[in-house]
């Protein structure tokens, strides 16, 4: 054996510890796997800024995205919205309520094993388009659906 085993182990141990320290420093939330919260996109007040924050450009209108939401929501505090993407290799789904003070409501990264479907409930301040932005194979696709709000749910 040319390389002393003890020396090798010592070296491996040191670099391992360094790697762990670096990873812990990068992740503010403390969960070892979560991506950092996308502050730029979530704190944007205009659609253009929101899309920029998401890194979305060259949006393609797609009929392969289904947005399930009521036509009229009486209570803007609870608007059920589900998004299904039938685009192959869907990587992420973002849900945007265009006229909310901060339009971006949610952004989901879909990993292998996850289906390209999410369902949740939004607060909406006023009647507005609900837009889904889907990333698949590095391209961005979009679809929108108007939801009429009787009583706003932001206050």
């Amino acid at each position, binding site marked *: 054996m040319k390389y002393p085993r003890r020396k090798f182990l010592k070296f491996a141990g040191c670099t391992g510890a360094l790697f762990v320290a670096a990873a812990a420093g990068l992740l503010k*939330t*403390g*969960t070892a*796997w*979560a*991506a950092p*919260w*996308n502050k730029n996109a*979530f704190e944007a007040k205009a659609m253009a800024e929101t899309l920029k924050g998401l890194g979305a450009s060259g949006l393609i209108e797609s009929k392969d995205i289904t947005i399930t939401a009521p036509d009229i929501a009486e209570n803007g*505090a*609870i*608007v*059920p919205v*589900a998004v299904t993407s039938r685009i192959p290799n869907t990587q992420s789904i973002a849900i945007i*309520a265009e006229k*909310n*003070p*901060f339009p*971006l*409501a*949610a*952004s*989901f*990264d*879909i*990993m*292998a*094993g*996850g*289906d390209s*479907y*999410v*369902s*949740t*409930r*939004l*607060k*909406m301040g006023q009647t507005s388009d609900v837009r889904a932005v889907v990333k698949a194979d590095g391209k961005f696709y979009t679809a929108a659906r108007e939801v009429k709000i009787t009583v706003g*749910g*932001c*206050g």
Partner: protein
Amino acid sequence: MADPMKIRATLQGDTADVRILMRHPMETGTRKTATGVVPLHFIQSVIVQHNGRTVLDGQWSQAISRDPFLGVRVKGAKVGDKISVTWVDNKDDKRTDEVAVMAGA
């Protein structure tokens, strides 16, 4: 410590239909009471794992409703598989709950 989530995972074919109900005030930071504005307090990160492997990594704004609902589907699931859900809010409070996948109707 935050209140527990209600999670139900039922198998439909080879896909687990997962429905999660969390308990959280999801304050927008604009709501006013007699004592002043209620500060911003909302879940920022939600992670769904299938047998320890992350299948969905979600980020939320304050526009998600109070006591949030999340529905997802996990492909290639079997009865007894573990589905775990973790959320972290903007005050670094967090909660993880786990259920086993049940046979569907």
